[in-house]
């Protein structure tokens, strides 16, 4: 029972990070209709930004998050303006091709620039943990969880309450009408992609504090973000939180009770089930 509680807590803490990873993908997918296959590679870049900030400039990984988010935002805005605006609302296959190409290029550039060595961000408090009854809560994982949830809810409020957030939702729903009322789609798309990558940058920084970084982590992270977006639905950032927590818990429990190699089997099995039973996601509107 104690072990179960511990694994459950681990799963929840992991799930928060999953949520913020998936949020950027879901935002870009929902608004631009681009399934960004390079999303995980951008998370990887965000992790390296945090790692260099920590090892090079001794900036605490949590304080460095806004910087890595900003760096990725700028990269995202420029990429969308210069490249991806060519394929917005193009057939899905084109967007898959171009983002897959980006993923390959980014991964190999990262390998050249950062080498294939495994890296970790180890702030002095990395080993600290709290004991809550039978359950151990590592401080870093807990902090990453809290930041992830705050970011996700913050994004939700941003989309609901601000002028830019409203315009992003409006453009996703009805491009024609949005243009009629003065939305400039090229700029808006670039802002959206920039925000998606900013979330990836922050997620990468958080990932670096709880896991190892190497240039090849992108593919798996993209796949997980994809699964979570589908499970949670694209409409609502809160759905992504639910999807992330769900996936984190299921993966952790599967690893405990069935075997460590079966974690991904469980997550993608659930993805298939959701696609069959409830294609609009757990919290998404019904089609």
């Amino acid at each position, binding site marked *: 029972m104690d072990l179960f509680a511990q694994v459950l807590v681990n799963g929840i803490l992991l799930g928060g990070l999953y949520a913020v990873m998936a949020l950027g993908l879901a935002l870009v997918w929902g608004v631009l209709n681009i399934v960004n296959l390079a999303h995980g590679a951008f998370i990887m870049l965000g992790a390296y930004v945090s790692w260099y900030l920590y090892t090079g400039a001794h900036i605490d990984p949590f304080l460095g998050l806004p910087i890595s988010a900003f760096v990725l935002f700028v990269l995202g805005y420029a990429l969308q303006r210069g490249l991806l605006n060519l394929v917005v609302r193009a057939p899905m296959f084109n967007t898959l091709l171009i983002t897959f190409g980006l993923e390959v290029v980014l991964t190999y550039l990262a390998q050249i620039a950062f080498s294939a060595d495994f890296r970790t961000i180890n702030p002095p408090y990395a080993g600290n943990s709290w004991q809550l009854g039978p359950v151990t809560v590592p401080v870093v994982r807990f902090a990453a969880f809290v930041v992830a949830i705050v970011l996700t809810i913050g994004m939700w409020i941003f989309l609901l309450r601000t*002028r830019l957030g*409203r*315009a992003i*939702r*409006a453009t996703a*729903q*009805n491009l*024609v*009408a*949005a*243009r*009629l*009322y*003065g*939305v*400039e789609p090229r700029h808006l798309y670039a802002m959206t992609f920039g925000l998606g990558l900013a979330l990836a940058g922050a997620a990468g920084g958080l990932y670096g504090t709880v896991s190892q970084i190497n240039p090849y982590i992108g593919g798996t992270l993209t796949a997980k973000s994809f699964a979570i977006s589908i499970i949670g639905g694209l*409409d609502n950032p809160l759905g992504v939180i639910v999807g992330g927590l769900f996936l984190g818990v299921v993966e952790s429990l599967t690893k405990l009770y069935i075997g460590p190699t079966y974690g991904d089997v469980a997550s993608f099995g659930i993805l298939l089930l959701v696609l069959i039973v409830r294609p609009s996601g757990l919290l998404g*509107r019904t089609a």
Partner: protein
Amino acid sequence: MNVAAERTPLLRVEGLSAGYGEMLALREASLEIYPAEIVALVGSNGAGKTTLLRALSRVVRSTGRIVFNGHDLDVLTPDEVFGLGLVQVPEGRQLFDRMTVQDNLLMGAYRRDDKAAVLRDLDRMYAMFPRLKERTRQLAGSLSGGEQQMCAMARALMAAPVLMMVDEMSLGLAPVVVEQLMGVLDAIRDEGVTVLLVEQDVQLALSTADRGYVLETGRIVHSGPASELIDDPAVRQAYLGL
């Protein structure tokens, strides 16, 4: 509207032709709209009404001259035209269905930076459309057809239009709702907003408007004060079935 003739027109269209590919949907159309007028542009399906609106909004390319409030529109982008206060209520409403009524209205004011004035206008809209006020938090897609049309018009008014172009407002709505919406057009005209009413329902449009233009296969075939057009034997025979 004899007075109108002596003023400078708000919108002057001269020899406007536009179309899609080789096909001209609009040929050499000319019209004038004066400040605080309601002008009806009527004609049957396929007469070129929507093409004219699209040319005014610079969504389709055209030849000829369009002068709005002293600006040549020919060289402007849709964005810039909108910025001059030429605002459309599109056919079929085109609301943001999964956003609340309030968010839809605020999207109308997307390009306005005067936050206080926007909030004042929001209150003004709710006073003008009490039905919307009861439904501020409801999703626009869940409104009835009449309420959706009110929402679309309120959204356009939130953009602080100088000239509001309303495309097929009455389509699919109950007569009592249409009458109410016509009352709204009168009210906003009294506030100084000029209205271009594009309608298939000729009787309805001409009974509300000050002046009218009749489009037929891309050409303007009749024009004049609405009260005269409605009595014109040719118009009556062609459109009113009388």
